């Protein structure tokens, strides 16, 4: 009853094309934005911010990136971790080579560099398809990590191999990266970044480029016949996806963990991001957020659950049990809703139109 579009008339093309065509959606998103911007920074504790909110925001950027590639353009990729590592190291090199450069441009620049790397590893996609491509993208994952481990230039010849993210400030004196930054400042900085990136991604998927991606995804030969160029479409998907993954990697290293190391971007993280995209919903920006939230919350809940329940289980046993429950939950979710959490929201919206009346 409350959630319906009756009586909301579109009188211009602009109104017809907006991202949130229904008033209730606009109110909802405004409320979410207000809570995220105004309420959470005031009430969230340091633990909540650093273990849940910041990783959630970082992973949603990565999930949006992979969703563009896998969900919209249909190119299965397992190289996300490698691209995130590229972003992290590019940001490190940029910020140490140009100490005066604003951190916003450092992040964007690292995204652009990662985009180039992504295009390079996207070239095989023109010939290889499906699971063959997925395995081929693993080459990117392993090769890039090896490169950052082996070539000392990337770590500025640091002897230990582990380097801490340089502290940088915006607006003159508000520190947002490095270990000395306040967690609220980090959170807000990241939030604004994520807001803009998500908006850009949503609009990209609605323009002709996004439609070309979807055509390639649904059937590439047919798309080619109606005049969509596979070369530009596939490579642009790789470039933009890698741009997002690169920024996610830079944010991971600079804001979340505070140290730049290849070990953090192992194949595990590639799988995790793929899980986010699939559990959240392929081909949905909202789904990227839902999936990221689910995958960030799940380990936190699993780690704390035996403690809350009062069970006394040895530590190594807990980590094995975590693996088991994690795997079982993944399978459970895939069986219950293979189209992801975004699809659940779709169904919920349909139900809400009538609720609380039966028809």
């Amino acid at each position: 009853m409350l959630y319906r579009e009756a009586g909301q008339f579109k009188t211009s093309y602009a109104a017809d094309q907006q991202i949130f065509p229904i008033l209730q959606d606009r109110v909802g998103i405004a409320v979410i934005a207000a809570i995220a911007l105004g309420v959470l920074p005031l009430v969230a504790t340091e633990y909540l911010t650093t273990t849940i909110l910041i990783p959630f925001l970082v992973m949603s950027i990565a999930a949006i990136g992979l969703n563009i590639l896998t969900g919209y353009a249909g190119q299965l990729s397992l190289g996300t971790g490698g691209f995130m590592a590229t972003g992290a190291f590019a940001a490190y090199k940029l910020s140490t080579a140009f100490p005066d450069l604003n951190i916003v441009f450092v992040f964007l620049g690292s995204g652009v560099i990662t985009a180039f790397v992504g295009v390079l590893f996207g070239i095989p996609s023109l010939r290889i398809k499906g699971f063959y491509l997925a395995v081929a993208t693993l080459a990117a994952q392993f090769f890039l990590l090896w490169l950052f481990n082996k070539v000392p230039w990337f770590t500025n010849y640091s002897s230990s191999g582990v380097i801490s993210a340089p502290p940088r400030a915006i607006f003159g004196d508000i520190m947002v990266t490095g270990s000395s930054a306040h967690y609220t400042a980090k959170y807000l900085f990241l939030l604004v970044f994520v807001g803009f990136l998500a908006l850009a991604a949503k609009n990209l998927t609605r323009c002709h480029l996004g439609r070309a991606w979807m055509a390639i995804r649904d059937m590439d030969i047919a798309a080619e016949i109606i005049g969509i160029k596979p070369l530009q479409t596939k490579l642009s998907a790789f470039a933009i996806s890698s741009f997002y993954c690169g920024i996610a990697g830079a944010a991971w290293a600079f804001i979340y963990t505070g140290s730049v190391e290849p070990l953090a971007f192992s194949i595990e993280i590639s799988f995790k991001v793929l899980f986010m995209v699939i559990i959240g919903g392929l081909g949905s920006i909202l789904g990227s957020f839902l999936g990221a939230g689910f995958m960030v919350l799940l380990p936190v809940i699993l780690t704390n659950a035996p403690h809350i329940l009062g069970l006394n289980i040895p530590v190594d046993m807990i980590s094995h049990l975590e693996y088991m429950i994690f795997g079982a939950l993944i399978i459970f979710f895939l069986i219950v809703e293979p189209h992801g959490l975004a699809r659940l929201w779709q169904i919920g919206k349909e139900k809400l139109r009538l609720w609380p009346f039966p028809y």
Partner: protein
Amino acid sequence: MDFLYNFFISPFVQIADSPLFFVEVLTGGLLSGVMYSLVALGFVLIFKASGVFNFAQGAMVLFAALFFAGFIDKGVPWWGSLILTIGVMVLLAMTIERVVLRPLVNQPHIILFMATIGVTYFLDGFGQTVWGSSVRVLDIGLPQTPLEIGGVLVNKFDIIAAVVAGSLVAVLAVFFQKTRVGRALRAVADDHQAALSVGIPLKTIWAIVWTVAGLVGLVAGVMWGSKLGVQFSLAMVALKALPVLILGGFTSVPGAIIGGLIIGAGEKVAEVYWADAIGGGIEDWFAYMLALVFLLFRPQGLFGDKIIERV
């Protein structure tokens, strides 16, 4: 300049200098490639019969090895633990078919792929919850001593592995070509619906395929386990088998063997002769790059079914 010399000239000079050593490296590589093939075989079997890209094969290798070594540690004789482990793998295959595959029939391939990653996590956790995460030594009396054949040193263990892999492929070939179940398997691999319509029970066939893949995993697990010890890193062997798989083609049993040989030999030779030029530790990615180069020329792998696309 130095780099170019190290990359393009000095390795070949080394090869020309001592061809016998090169043959030794090459044989060592070929034989270790057989070990990759053992794991890749399990992937191929399942992909052929159900179109599922089973990422859990590596976890199944670890799972089988953990149970086998665990039973032996408990004092069960090796043939007894072999039978027990076979029982466990059959049970596992039936459970996977019932719990994971049956509810996901007709879903896109990527969903099934993700489900097998879920299975991977589950099996890794389950095996280690039951048997603990310490490294177990699996000694079933296989010799590790080197053997000299015509001036070339070869590890006896590797030769046994090659013989085992060879006989495994022979048994599988006979099973696929000559038995009733094998014919049904090939029919299912060709076309699910056509197979169903002539009365082949799809569910039973899938359970059988996963059982066979589990048994291949057991063989691989015993071989790898006695080489490296039974430990968590055994599951990572799957990542080594993937390039073998795409090189040989997802649908070809001989492809898995040939792919393993190429990858094993290429990796060893590159590591011995080119590691100096580009830095060590290349075994993580070299196989993938090699496979990528092959794929650029044959997108379906060397022996995979030709991909026919229609609009």
